[in-house]
């Protein structure tokens, strides 16, 4: 367990939060994530579930589980339409110890005025990456009585970020004295209908300014292969870094539950059968995840992998190591420096 005293916040990052690393020409952000991808490394990202707590050490504890195996950490924004610690704050806490956080912004809870304010604040706190999402509907969460906002959609959100960053203005046209230098990404789900539109939908997001794309959970390799080969044919993999999402299933029961309750998750029957037939379902789920990572790395046009292991974060490091996708590369972690 990480205690508060053992967290060494690097004063460099706190006093100069907008300037975590020296600027590189041709890079939009000063973050590590963009550097790893642009160097052509196979990147690994993961997801941190912000705690139901006001204690920051819980954030640090969770992040430390990913040390030396991931290049960037997504902080989810009210995932599943459930309230957790704010993603901007989680990312700021992570940025201040030197991690490379990816700020997820969902369109569900905030209108354009609030979102632009968050983007400026996030950049001011040293957050260098942002991921534009539509967001699960309020009805998916534990407060379905809440008002849904969806003032922007993920593509208008991307356009907004790019306008602020590249033109140094707000949507109203009002000038910014310093633009938010953020590496912008979005998501795609190739595994749900309308299937034929999904590559075009990704193209639209790239046209709107997405520089990296993380996909929904992939449990169906043939589907991902078909999607990726179409993306390669369209030249999309030259224009954006694509990181397919993989995940681990704790048991066949969890898999069945996810399939029917988590919006947009497609799990083929063959995966469920394999889990059911296994002696240790949890281990088998991890084995499936490791194999998926390895298969993802073999695909043409892929720049990395996004590992989602909700409530199973403690196994991410082992799975990434077992997969060997990092080769002999050891991603940065705070302990490197102290």
């Amino acid at each position, binding site marked *: 367990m990480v205690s508060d005293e053992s967290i060494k916040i690097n004063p460099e990052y706190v006093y100069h939060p907008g300037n975590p690393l020296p600027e590189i020409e041709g890079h939009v952000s000063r973050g590590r994530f963009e550097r790893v991808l642009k160097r052509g490394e196979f990147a690994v990202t993961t997801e941190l579930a912000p705690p139901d707590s006001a204690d920051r050490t819980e954030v640090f504890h969770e992040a430390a589980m990913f040390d030396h195996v991931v290049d960037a950490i997504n902080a989810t924004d009210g995932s599943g339409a459930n309230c957790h610690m704010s993603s901007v704050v989680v990312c700021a806490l992570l940025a201040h110890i030197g991690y490379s956080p990816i700020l997820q912004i969902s369109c569900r809870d905030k209108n354009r005025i609030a979102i632009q304010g968050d983007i400026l604040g996030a950049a001011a706190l040293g957050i260098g990456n942002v991921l534009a999402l539509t967001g699960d*509907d309020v009805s998916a969460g534990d407060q379905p009585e809440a008002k*849904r906002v*969806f003032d922007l*959609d993920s*593509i208008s959100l991307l356009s907004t970020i790019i306008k602020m960053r590249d033109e140094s203005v707000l949507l109203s046209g009002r000038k910014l004295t310093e633009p938010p230098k953020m590496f912008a990404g979005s998501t795609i789900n190739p595994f749900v209908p309308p299937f034929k539109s999904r590559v075009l939908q990704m193209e*639209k997001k790239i046209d709107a300014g997405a520089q990296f794309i993380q996909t929904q959970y992939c449990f169906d390799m043939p589907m991902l292969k078909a999607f990726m080969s179409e993306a390669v044919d369209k030249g999309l993999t030259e224009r954006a870094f694509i990181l397919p999402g993989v995940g681990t299933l704790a048991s066949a029961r969890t898999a069945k539950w996810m399939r029917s309750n988590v919006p947009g998750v497609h799990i083929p029957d063959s995966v469920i059968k394999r889990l059911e037939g296994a002696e240790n379902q949890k281990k088998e789920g991890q084995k499936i995840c490791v194999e998926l990572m390895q298969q993802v790395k073999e695909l043409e046009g892929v720049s990395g992998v996004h590992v989602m292991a909700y409530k199973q974060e403690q196994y991410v490091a082992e799975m990434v190591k077992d997969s060997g996708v990092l080769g002999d590369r050891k991603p940065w972690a705070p302990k490197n420096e102290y």
Partner: protein
Amino acid sequence: MYKARLFASKHARAYEAMYNASSPIILASLRLVQKLTKGKLDKPITWAEKKIKGFLFDCQMCGNCILSTTGMTCPMNCPKTLRNGPCGGVRANGNCEVKPEMKCVWVEAWRGSREMKHNHKIQEIQFAVNHEHKGSSAWIRLANEDVKAK
């Protein structure tokens, strides 16, 4: 009306042809009306637009109409009011994540757009709705813009 809406996406090609043929006529007559009445007929025109597009497309009178780019399917019927394509939550049967009994608006829009001649229009990036225009007539605004431009 849900059934009329589905019919529109199914027959998007015919609707597109009708739209392309009728919209210059509607706009020309509206321009004339605007010139003569200086906006005195705005209310009944808005009412007519609401009734006609409401029946045909379940129009929500957002005042930012993009029907011809979205396979003749009104995107404002999406519970998330998405204007640039489907979310990632579409059910395996093509129905909506939020309203399981309804076909996903963007599954319909995609089907409609494949039927249409100008099917590339669905790829145009749409910025968010201007909420100041909610409840107002898109027809009148188009006509007025033309009158002003001249």
